[in-house]
Protein backbone atom coordinates (compact mmCIF):
# COMPACT_ATOMS: atom_id res chain seq x y z
CA UNK A 1 0.00 0.00 0.00
CA UNK A 2 1.39 3.36 -1.05
CA UNK A 3 0.49 4.95 2.26
CA UNK A 4 2.95 2.78 4.18
CA UNK A 5 5.91 4.46 2.60
CA UNK A 6 4.87 7.68 4.37
CA UNK A 7 4.74 6.05 7.79
CA UNK A 8 7.22 7.26 10.39
CA UNK A 9 6.58 4.34 12.75
CA UNK A 10 9.73 3.57 14.74
CA UNK A 11 11.45 6.82 13.81
CA UNK A 12 12.55 9.51 16.22
CA UNK A 13 12.20 13.22 15.45
CA UNK A 14 13.53 16.30 17.16
CA UNK A 15 11.70 19.55 16.45
CA UNK A 16 13.44 22.75 17.50
CA UNK A 17 11.04 25.69 17.51
CA UNK A 18 7.99 23.60 18.39
CA UNK A 19 7.09 26.64 20.46
CA UNK A 20 5.95 28.48 17.32
CA UNK A 21 2.94 27.63 15.18
CA UNK A 22 4.77 25.98 12.29
CA UNK A 23 7.11 23.94 14.48
CA UNK A 24 4.20 22.84 16.65
CA UNK A 25 2.15 21.74 13.63
CA UNK A 26 5.11 19.80 12.23
CA UNK A 27 5.79 18.07 15.55
CA UNK A 28 2.16 16.97 15.78
CA UNK A 29 2.07 15.84 12.14
CA UNK A 30 5.22 13.75 12.60
CA UNK A 31 3.70 12.16 15.71
CA UNK A 32 0.46 11.47 13.83
CA UNK A 33 2.52 9.73 11.17
CA UNK A 34 4.01 7.46 13.81
CA UNK A 35 7.21 9.12 15.00
CA UNK A 36 8.29 9.66 18.58
CA UNK A 37 8.99 13.38 18.89
CA UNK A 38 11.15 15.47 21.16
CA UNK A 39 10.38 19.18 21.05
CA UNK A 40 12.35 22.24 22.05
CA UNK A 41 11.98 25.99 22.23
CA UNK A 42 13.90 28.51 20.14
CA UNK A 43 14.66 30.75 23.12
CA UNK A 44 14.30 30.35 26.87
CA UNK A 45 11.22 32.45 27.39
CA UNK A 46 8.29 31.59 29.59
CA UNK A 47 5.91 31.82 26.64
CA UNK A 48 7.97 29.44 24.51
CA UNK A 49 8.44 27.00 27.36
CA UNK A 50 4.69 26.79 27.93
CA UNK A 51 4.10 26.34 24.19
CA UNK A 52 6.70 23.58 23.90
CA UNK A 53 5.21 21.68 26.85
CA UNK A 54 1.76 21.98 25.37
CA UNK A 55 3.13 20.60 22.11
CA UNK A 56 4.71 17.67 23.97
CA UNK A 57 1.32 17.01 25.56
CA UNK A 58 -0.18 16.71 22.09
CA UNK A 59 2.53 14.22 21.15
CA UNK A 60 1.78 12.13 24.26
CA UNK A 61 -1.94 12.30 23.54
CA UNK A 62 -1.17 10.51 20.27
CA UNK A 63 0.49 7.72 22.28
CA UNK A 64 3.93 8.68 21.08
CA UNK A 65 6.97 9.13 23.25
CA UNK A 66 8.74 12.44 23.55
CA UNK A 67 9.66 15.29 25.83
CA UNK A 68 9.84 19.06 25.86
CA UNK A 69 13.05 20.91 26.57
CA UNK A 70 13.60 24.64 26.97
CA UNK A 71 16.76 25.66 25.14
CA UNK A 72 18.40 28.70 23.72
CA UNK A 73 18.90 27.58 20.14
CA UNK A 74 21.97 29.79 19.79
CA UNK A 75 23.73 28.01 22.67
CA UNK A 76 26.04 25.23 21.54
CA UNK A 77 25.89 23.48 24.92
CA UNK A 78 22.07 23.64 25.02
CA UNK A 79 21.81 22.16 21.53
CA UNK A 80 24.40 19.44 22.17
CA UNK A 81 22.63 18.47 25.39
CA UNK A 82 19.27 18.39 23.61
CA UNK A 83 20.53 15.99 20.95
CA UNK A 84 22.20 13.80 23.60
CA UNK A 85 18.97 13.65 25.60
CA UNK A 86 16.97 12.76 22.48
CA UNK A 87 19.27 9.88 21.58
CA UNK A 88 19.44 8.60 25.16
CA UNK A 89 15.72 8.87 25.97
CA UNK A 90 14.28 7.96 22.59
CA UNK A 91 17.21 5.72 21.58
CA UNK A 92 18.01 7.27 18.19
CA UNK A 93 17.57 10.36 16.01
CA UNK A 94 16.20 10.08 12.46
CA UNK A 95 14.59 13.43 11.78
CA UNK A 96 15.74 16.92 12.75
CA UNK A 97 13.32 19.77 12.13
CA UNK A 98 14.79 23.24 12.41
CA UNK A 99 11.76 25.47 12.85
CA UNK A 100 13.72 28.17 14.66
CA UNK A 101 11.89 31.45 14.60
CA UNK A 102 12.93 34.58 16.41
CA UNK A 103 10.76 37.21 14.73
CA UNK A 104 12.18 40.68 14.38
CA UNK A 105 11.46 43.65 12.13
CA UNK A 106 12.70 47.21 12.46
CA UNK A 107 14.00 49.96 10.21
CA UNK A 108 17.70 49.23 9.66
CA UNK A 109 18.95 52.45 11.23
CA UNK A 110 17.25 51.41 14.46
CA UNK A 111 18.71 47.90 14.49
CA UNK A 112 21.49 47.70 17.08
CA UNK A 113 24.46 45.38 16.49
CA UNK A 114 23.25 43.39 19.50
CA UNK A 115 19.82 42.88 17.96
CA UNK A 116 21.30 42.03 14.57
CA UNK A 117 23.66 39.49 16.13
CA UNK A 118 20.90 37.91 18.19
CA UNK A 119 18.60 37.52 15.17
CA UNK A 120 21.40 35.91 13.13
CA UNK A 121 22.54 33.78 16.09
CA UNK A 122 19.15 32.27 16.78
CA UNK A 123 17.68 32.03 13.27
CA UNK A 124 20.79 31.01 11.33
CA UNK A 125 23.61 29.95 13.64
CA UNK A 126 21.08 27.95 15.66
CA UNK A 127 20.30 25.87 12.58
CA UNK A 128 23.99 25.23 11.99
CA UNK A 129 24.46 24.14 15.63
CA UNK A 130 21.51 21.77 15.41
CA UNK A 131 22.62 20.29 12.09
CA UNK A 132 26.11 19.71 13.43
CA UNK A 133 24.91 18.10 16.63
CA UNK A 134 22.34 15.88 14.89
CA UNK A 135 24.65 14.90 12.07
CA UNK A 136 26.88 12.86 14.38
CA UNK A 137 24.28 10.15 15.14
CA UNK A 138 22.78 10.47 11.64
CA UNK A 139 26.08 10.06 9.81
CA UNK A 140 27.10 7.12 11.98
CA UNK A 141 23.79 5.34 11.32
CA UNK A 142 24.09 6.40 7.65
CA UNK A 143 20.57 7.75 7.54
CA UNK A 144 18.77 10.85 8.60
CA UNK A 145 16.58 13.70 7.50
CA UNK A 146 17.11 17.35 8.17
CA UNK A 147 14.11 19.56 7.46
CA UNK A 148 14.66 23.29 7.72
CA UNK A 149 11.75 25.68 7.84
CA UNK A 150 12.46 28.89 5.95
CA UNK A 151 10.08 31.75 5.36
CA UNK A 152 9.17 33.73 2.26
CA UNK A 153 11.62 36.24 3.63
CA UNK A 154 14.48 33.92 2.75
CA UNK A 155 13.52 34.37 -0.90
CA UNK A 156 12.11 37.89 -0.96
CA UNK A 157 12.83 41.13 0.80
CA UNK A 158 10.56 42.98 3.21
CA UNK A 159 10.63 46.54 4.51
CA UNK A 160 12.06 46.46 8.08
CA UNK A 161 13.11 42.84 7.53
CA UNK A 162 16.82 43.11 6.67
CA UNK A 163 18.19 41.10 9.61
CA UNK A 164 15.51 38.45 9.49
CA UNK A 165 15.65 38.22 5.69
CA UNK A 166 19.43 37.77 5.78
CA UNK A 167 19.17 34.99 8.36
CA UNK A 168 16.42 33.19 6.46
CA UNK A 169 18.28 33.37 3.18
CA UNK A 170 21.26 31.92 5.00
CA UNK A 171 19.21 28.92 6.11
CA UNK A 172 17.94 28.47 2.58
CA UNK A 173 21.37 28.07 1.07
CA UNK A 174 22.76 26.24 4.09
CA UNK A 175 20.15 23.64 3.14
CA UNK A 176 21.55 23.24 -0.38
CA UNK A 177 25.17 23.19 0.78
CA UNK A 178 24.60 20.50 3.43
CA UNK A 179 22.49 18.47 1.01
CA UNK A 180 25.51 18.24 -1.27
CA UNK A 181 27.96 17.66 1.56
CA UNK A 182 25.98 14.73 2.89
CA UNK A 183 24.48 13.49 -0.39
CA UNK A 184 26.36 10.18 -0.28
CA UNK A 185 26.04 9.63 3.44
CA UNK A 186 22.33 8.82 3.66
CA UNK A 187 21.46 12.14 5.30
CA UNK A 188 19.00 14.20 3.26
CA UNK A 189 18.62 17.92 3.81
CA UNK A 190 15.57 19.77 2.54
CA UNK A 191 13.58 22.84 3.43
CA UNK A 192 9.95 23.75 3.68
CA UNK A 193 9.35 27.26 2.43
CA UNK A 194 6.57 28.47 4.64
CA UNK A 195 4.12 31.09 3.43
CA UNK A 196 2.27 33.54 5.62
CA UNK A 197 0.49 31.45 8.24
CA UNK A 198 -1.94 32.13 11.07
CA UNK A 199 -0.15 32.91 14.31
CA UNK A 200 3.27 33.65 12.83
CA UNK A 201 5.44 36.04 14.77
CA UNK A 202 6.09 38.49 11.93
CA UNK A 203 2.52 39.28 10.96
CA UNK A 204 2.50 42.67 12.62
CA UNK A 205 -0.80 44.29 13.54
CA UNK A 206 -4.34 43.43 12.48
CA UNK A 207 -4.27 46.04 9.72
CA UNK A 208 -1.16 44.50 8.19
CA UNK A 209 -2.68 41.06 8.43
CA UNK A 210 -5.72 42.27 6.49
CA UNK A 211 -3.46 43.78 3.81
CA UNK A 212 -1.78 40.40 3.49
CA UNK A 213 -5.03 38.47 3.22
CA UNK A 214 -6.22 40.74 0.48
CA UNK A 215 -2.93 40.33 -1.36
CA UNK A 216 -2.59 36.55 -1.27
CA UNK A 217 -4.00 34.52 -4.20
CA UNK A 218 -6.15 32.46 -1.79
CA UNK A 219 -7.31 35.61 0.02
CA UNK A 220 -6.37 33.98 3.31
CA UNK A 221 -3.35 33.03 5.37
CA UNK A 222 -2.29 29.39 5.64
CA UNK A 223 -3.23 27.23 8.58
CA UNK A 224 0.03 25.91 10.08
CA UNK A 225 -1.26 22.36 9.51
CA UNK A 226 -1.31 23.04 5.77
CA UNK A 227 2.42 23.61 5.87
CA UNK A 228 3.25 20.69 8.14
CA UNK A 229 2.24 17.95 5.71
CA UNK A 230 5.38 18.45 3.66
CA UNK A 231 7.46 17.54 6.70
CA UNK A 232 5.83 14.11 6.84
CA UNK A 233 6.71 13.53 3.20
CA UNK A 234 10.28 14.81 3.62
CA UNK A 235 10.81 12.73 6.76
CA UNK A 236 9.47 9.52 5.25
CA UNK A 237 10.89 6.80 3.02
CA UNK A 238 8.76 8.34 0.25
CA UNK A 239 11.38 11.07 -0.08
CA UNK A 240 14.47 8.87 -0.27
CA UNK A 241 15.77 10.60 -3.39
CA UNK A 242 14.84 14.13 -2.37
CA UNK A 243 17.66 16.35 -1.19
CA UNK A 244 18.66 19.99 -1.42
CA UNK A 245 15.14 21.08 -2.28
CA UNK A 246 13.06 23.96 -1.05
CA UNK A 247 9.38 23.03 -1.20
CA UNK A 248 7.25 26.15 -0.97
CA UNK A 249 3.82 26.07 0.61
CA UNK A 250 2.72 29.64 0.22
CA UNK A 251 -0.64 29.58 -1.53
CA UNK A 252 0.84 30.87 -4.76
CA UNK A 253 2.41 33.99 -3.24
CA UNK A 254 5.69 33.43 -5.08
CA UNK A 255 3.99 32.88 -8.42
CA UNK A 256 2.54 36.36 -8.56
CA UNK A 257 4.43 39.58 -9.21
Amino acid at each position, binding site marked *: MAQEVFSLEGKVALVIGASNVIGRAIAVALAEAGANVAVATTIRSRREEVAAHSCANEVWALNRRGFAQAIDAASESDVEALVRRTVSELSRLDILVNAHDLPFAKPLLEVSPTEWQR*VIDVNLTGVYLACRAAARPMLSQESGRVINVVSLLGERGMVNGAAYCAAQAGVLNLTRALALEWARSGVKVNAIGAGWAEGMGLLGQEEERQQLEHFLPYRRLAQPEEIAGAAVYMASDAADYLTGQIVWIEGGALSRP
Partner: protein
Amino acid sequence: MLALDKLKLDGKVAVVTGAGRGLGLAMALALAEADADLVVAARTRSQIEETAETVRARGRRCLPVPTDITDSRSVQAMVDAAIAEYGRIDILVNNAGAGSIGRGIPLEEVTDDLWRRSIDTNLSGAFYCCRAAIPHMLRQGGGKIINVTSISGLRGVPNSFTYAAAKAGLINFTRALALTYARHNIQCNLIAPGLFPHGEPAAIEALGGGRYVPMGRVGSDEEMGPLCVFLASELTSYMNGQVIVLDGGGLAGGHAPTGFAPVVPLAADALEGGA
Protein backbone atom coordinates in the same frame (compact mmCIF):
# COMPACT_ATOMS: atom_id res chain seq x y z
CA MET B 1 40.40 50.62 -21.54
CA LEU B 2 38.43 52.79 -19.13
CA ALA B 3 35.09 51.38 -18.08
CA LEU B 4 33.13 54.22 -19.64
CA ASP B 5 34.97 53.79 -22.94
CA LYS B 6 33.70 50.22 -23.05
CA LEU B 7 30.18 51.60 -23.40
CA LYS B 8 31.05 53.03 -26.80
CA LEU B 9 29.44 51.09 -29.64
CA ASP B 10 31.08 52.89 -32.56
CA GLY B 11 31.65 50.57 -35.49
CA LYS B 12 28.91 48.23 -34.22
CA VAL B 13 25.69 47.47 -36.01
CA ALA B 14 22.56 46.88 -33.96
CA VAL B 15 19.27 45.39 -35.11
CA VAL B 16 16.27 46.36 -32.99
CA THR B 17 12.86 44.81 -33.60
CA GLY B 18 9.72 46.60 -32.55
CA ALA B 19 11.69 49.83 -32.87
CA GLY B 20 8.79 51.99 -34.07
CA ARG B 21 7.68 53.05 -30.60
CA GLY B 22 7.89 52.40 -26.89
CA LEU B 23 10.80 50.49 -25.44
CA GLY B 24 12.13 49.50 -28.87
CA LEU B 25 12.33 53.13 -29.93
CA ALA B 26 14.01 54.11 -26.65
CA MET B 27 16.56 51.31 -26.97
CA ALA B 28 17.30 52.13 -30.60
CA LEU B 29 17.93 55.78 -29.75
CA ALA B 30 20.14 54.85 -26.80
CA LEU B 31 22.22 52.50 -28.98
CA ALA B 32 22.56 55.29 -31.54
CA GLU B 33 23.68 57.71 -28.84
CA ALA B 34 26.36 55.17 -27.95
CA ASP B 35 27.43 55.48 -31.62
CA ALA B 36 26.05 52.23 -33.03
CA ASP B 37 24.60 52.16 -36.52
CA LEU B 38 21.12 50.72 -36.68
CA VAL B 39 18.64 48.55 -38.42
CA VAL B 40 15.16 49.23 -37.12
CA ALA B 41 12.46 46.69 -37.84
CA ALA B 42 8.71 46.72 -37.23
CA ARG B 43 5.51 46.10 -39.14
CA THR B 44 4.51 49.74 -39.52
CA ARG B 45 6.72 51.48 -42.08
CA SER B 46 5.82 55.03 -41.09
CA GLN B 47 6.88 54.48 -37.48
CA ILE B 48 10.28 53.01 -38.23
CA GLU B 49 10.93 55.68 -40.85
CA GLU B 50 10.31 58.22 -38.14
CA THR B 51 12.70 56.34 -35.84
CA ALA B 52 15.28 56.29 -38.64
CA GLU B 53 14.96 60.06 -39.13
CA THR B 54 15.56 60.63 -35.41
CA VAL B 55 18.60 58.35 -35.44
CA ARG B 56 20.06 60.04 -38.51
CA ALA B 57 19.49 63.43 -36.91
CA ARG B 58 21.82 62.21 -34.16
CA GLY B 59 24.50 61.46 -36.71
CA ARG B 60 24.22 57.69 -37.06
CA ARG B 61 23.24 55.55 -40.00
CA CYS B 62 19.86 53.85 -39.82
CA LEU B 63 18.11 51.38 -42.10
CA PRO B 64 14.38 50.95 -41.54
CA VAL B 65 13.12 47.54 -42.70
CA PRO B 66 9.39 46.78 -42.50
CA THR B 67 9.30 43.28 -41.01
CA ASP B 68 6.74 40.78 -39.82
CA ILE B 69 8.69 38.85 -37.22
CA THR B 70 6.09 36.07 -37.20
CA ASP B 71 7.12 35.27 -40.78
CA SER B 72 10.57 33.70 -40.96
CA ARG B 73 11.00 34.75 -44.62
CA SER B 74 10.34 38.35 -43.70
CA VAL B 75 12.90 38.07 -40.88
CA GLN B 76 15.49 36.51 -43.19
CA ALA B 77 14.92 39.33 -45.69
CA MET B 78 15.43 41.90 -42.92
CA VAL B 79 18.71 40.30 -41.84
CA ASP B 80 19.83 40.04 -45.48
CA ALA B 81 19.07 43.73 -45.92
CA ALA B 82 21.10 44.55 -42.81
CA ILE B 83 24.07 42.58 -44.12
CA ALA B 84 23.71 44.16 -47.57
CA GLU B 85 23.78 47.61 -45.99
CA TYR B 86 26.46 47.17 -43.33
CA GLY B 87 28.11 43.78 -43.89
CA ARG B 88 27.71 42.82 -40.24
CA ILE B 89 25.37 42.48 -37.23
CA ASP B 90 26.92 42.91 -33.78
CA ILE B 91 23.87 43.45 -31.61
CA LEU B 92 20.41 41.95 -31.94
CA VAL B 93 17.65 43.31 -29.70
CA ASN B 94 14.56 41.11 -29.87
CA ASN B 95 12.06 43.55 -28.49
CA ALA B 96 9.03 43.07 -30.75
CA GLY B 97 6.13 41.45 -28.96
CA ALA B 98 2.53 41.97 -28.01
CA GLY B 99 1.31 41.48 -24.48
CA SER B 100 -2.16 42.42 -25.58
CA ILE B 101 -2.72 39.19 -27.51
CA GLY B 102 -4.75 36.95 -25.22
CA ARG B 103 -4.54 39.21 -22.15
CA GLY B 104 -7.49 38.92 -19.79
CA ILE B 105 -9.09 36.07 -21.72
CA PRO B 106 -10.35 33.07 -19.71
CA LEU B 107 -8.64 29.80 -20.60
CA GLU B 108 -11.64 28.21 -22.28
CA GLU B 109 -11.89 31.22 -24.59
CA VAL B 110 -8.28 31.11 -25.73
CA THR B 111 -8.65 29.81 -29.27
CA ASP B 112 -5.99 27.80 -31.09
CA ASP B 113 -5.47 30.79 -33.34
CA LEU B 114 -5.01 33.22 -30.45
CA TRP B 115 -2.52 30.88 -28.77
CA ARG B 116 -0.49 30.48 -31.95
CA ARG B 117 -0.51 34.20 -32.74
CA SER B 118 0.83 34.99 -29.29
CA ILE B 119 3.53 32.30 -29.41
CA ASP B 120 4.46 33.39 -32.94
CA THR B 121 4.77 37.03 -31.95
CA ASN B 122 6.30 36.71 -28.51
CA LEU B 123 8.54 33.67 -28.90
CA SER B 124 8.95 32.42 -32.46
CA GLY B 125 9.84 35.88 -33.76
CA ALA B 126 12.92 36.03 -31.52
CA PHE B 127 13.87 32.52 -32.62
CA TYR B 128 13.66 33.50 -36.31
CA CYS B 129 15.78 36.59 -35.70
CA CYS B 130 18.43 34.68 -33.73
CA ARG B 131 18.58 31.90 -36.31
CA ALA B 132 19.11 34.42 -39.09
CA ALA B 133 21.59 36.68 -37.29
CA ILE B 134 23.79 34.31 -35.31
CA PRO B 135 25.62 32.86 -38.34
CA HIS B 136 26.84 36.39 -39.07
CA MET B 137 27.94 36.84 -35.46
CA LEU B 138 29.84 33.56 -35.61
CA ARG B 139 31.53 34.66 -38.81
CA GLN B 140 32.49 37.98 -37.21
CA GLY B 141 33.79 36.30 -34.08
CA GLY B 142 31.15 37.48 -31.63
CA GLY B 143 27.98 39.37 -30.91
CA LYS B 144 25.32 40.34 -28.42
CA ILE B 145 21.77 39.03 -28.19
CA ILE B 146 19.39 41.00 -25.98
CA ASN B 147 15.98 39.41 -25.65
CA VAL B 148 13.17 41.34 -24.04
CA THR B 149 11.04 39.12 -21.84
CA SER B 150 8.56 40.31 -19.24
CA ILE B 151 7.62 40.04 -15.59
CA SER B 152 4.99 37.71 -17.06
CA GLY B 153 7.81 35.36 -18.04
CA LEU B 154 8.85 35.10 -14.40
CA ARG B 155 5.54 35.31 -12.53
CA GLY B 156 1.96 34.50 -13.33
CA VAL B 157 -0.92 36.89 -13.87
CA PRO B 158 -4.51 35.57 -13.81
CA ASN B 159 -6.06 35.00 -17.25
CA SER B 160 -2.86 35.79 -19.07
CA PHE B 161 -1.78 32.46 -20.49
CA THR B 162 -0.31 32.87 -23.91
CA TYR B 163 2.02 35.73 -23.02
CA ALA B 164 3.21 33.98 -19.84
CA ALA B 165 4.05 30.83 -21.78
CA ALA B 166 5.79 32.68 -24.60
CA LYS B 167 7.86 34.96 -22.40
CA ALA B 168 8.93 32.15 -20.05
CA GLY B 169 9.83 30.17 -23.14
CA LEU B 170 11.95 33.08 -24.34
CA ILE B 171 13.92 33.07 -21.08
CA ASN B 172 14.96 29.46 -21.31
CA PHE B 173 15.47 29.69 -25.08
CA THR B 174 17.96 32.45 -24.31
CA ARG B 175 19.73 30.39 -21.66
CA ALA B 176 20.12 27.59 -24.21
CA LEU B 177 21.55 30.09 -26.69
CA ALA B 178 23.87 31.44 -24.02
CA LEU B 179 25.34 28.02 -23.35
CA THR B 180 25.50 27.02 -26.99
CA TYR B 181 27.48 30.08 -28.06
CA ALA B 182 29.36 30.71 -24.82
CA ARG B 183 32.67 29.84 -26.44
CA HIS B 184 31.94 31.80 -29.58
CA ASN B 185 31.95 35.18 -27.85
CA ILE B 186 28.22 35.70 -28.26
CA GLN B 187 26.61 36.90 -25.05
CA CYS B 188 22.90 36.24 -24.75
CA ASN B 189 20.98 38.02 -21.99
CA LEU B 190 17.48 39.18 -21.21
CA ILE B 191 15.73 42.29 -20.01
CA ALA B 192 12.50 41.88 -18.04
CA PRO B 193 10.74 45.25 -17.89
CA GLY B 194 8.25 45.96 -15.12
CA LEU B 195 5.50 48.49 -15.74
CA PHE B 196 6.29 50.70 -18.73
CA PRO B 197 3.15 52.46 -19.96
CA HIS B 198 5.15 54.42 -22.56
CA GLY B 199 4.05 57.76 -21.16
CA GLU B 200 0.41 57.20 -22.15
CA PRO B 201 -1.78 58.89 -19.53
CA ALA B 202 -4.60 56.32 -19.76
CA ALA B 203 -2.13 53.46 -19.36
CA ILE B 204 -0.43 55.16 -16.42
CA GLU B 205 -3.84 55.72 -14.82
CA ALA B 206 -4.76 52.05 -15.34
CA LEU B 207 -1.61 51.10 -13.42
CA GLY B 208 -2.58 53.31 -10.51
CA GLY B 209 0.26 55.64 -11.42
CA GLY B 210 2.62 52.93 -10.22
CA ARG B 211 1.68 53.27 -6.55
CA TYR B 212 1.96 49.49 -6.11
CA VAL B 213 5.54 49.57 -7.33
CA PRO B 214 8.00 49.78 -4.39
CA MET B 215 9.53 52.91 -5.93
CA GLY B 216 6.05 54.38 -6.21
CA ARG B 217 6.06 55.05 -9.94
CA VAL B 218 6.01 53.35 -13.31
CA GLY B 219 9.06 53.18 -15.57
CA SER B 220 9.69 55.63 -18.36
CA ASP B 221 10.95 54.28 -21.67
CA GLU B 222 14.11 56.40 -21.50
CA GLU B 223 15.16 54.41 -18.44
CA MET B 224 15.40 51.27 -20.54
CA GLY B 225 17.93 52.69 -23.00
CA PRO B 226 21.01 52.64 -20.77
CA LEU B 227 20.37 49.01 -19.74
CA CYS B 228 20.24 48.03 -23.39
CA VAL B 229 23.53 49.85 -24.08
CA PHE B 230 25.10 48.18 -21.05
CA LEU B 231 24.08 44.71 -22.26
CA ALA B 232 25.26 45.56 -25.79
CA SER B 233 28.65 46.80 -24.59
CA GLU B 234 32.00 45.32 -23.65
CA LEU B 235 31.11 45.92 -20.00
CA THR B 236 29.12 42.70 -20.18
CA SER B 237 31.64 40.54 -22.00
CA TYR B 238 31.43 37.88 -19.24
CA MET B 239 27.67 38.14 -18.59
CA ASN B 240 25.72 35.37 -20.23
CA GLY B 241 22.27 33.85 -19.84
CA GLN B 242 21.08 36.38 -17.28
CA VAL B 243 17.74 38.07 -16.76
CA ILE B 244 17.97 41.71 -15.65
CA VAL B 245 14.68 42.82 -14.13
CA LEU B 246 14.05 46.58 -14.40
CA ASP B 247 10.93 47.02 -12.32
CA GLY B 248 11.39 49.56 -9.55
CA GLY B 249 11.85 46.79 -7.00
CA GLY B 250 8.63 44.87 -7.60
CA LEU B 251 10.09 41.39 -7.75
CA ALA B 252 12.36 41.98 -4.75
CA GLY B 253 9.19 41.82 -2.69
CA GLY B 254 6.01 40.45 -4.09
CA HIS B 255 5.15 38.07 -1.26
CA ALA B 256 3.24 40.79 0.53
CA PRO B 257 1.61 44.01 -0.62
CA THR B 258 3.73 47.06 -1.36
CA GLY B 259 4.09 49.06 1.81
CA PHE B 260 3.79 46.01 4.07
CA ALA B 261 6.21 47.00 6.81
CA PRO B 262 5.54 45.45 10.19
CA VAL B 263 7.54 46.52 13.22
CA VAL B 264 8.22 43.58 15.54
CA PRO B 265 10.70 44.27 18.34
CA LEU B 266 12.56 41.40 19.96
CA ALA B 267 10.63 39.93 22.85
CA ALA B 268 11.76 41.41 26.17
CA ASP B 269 13.37 38.11 27.25
CA ALA B 270 14.78 37.18 23.85
CA LEU B 271 18.18 38.76 24.36
CA GLU B 272 19.13 36.89 27.51
CA GLY B 273 20.73 33.89 25.87
CA GLY B 274 20.82 30.47 27.41
CA ALA B 275 24.43 29.55 27.86
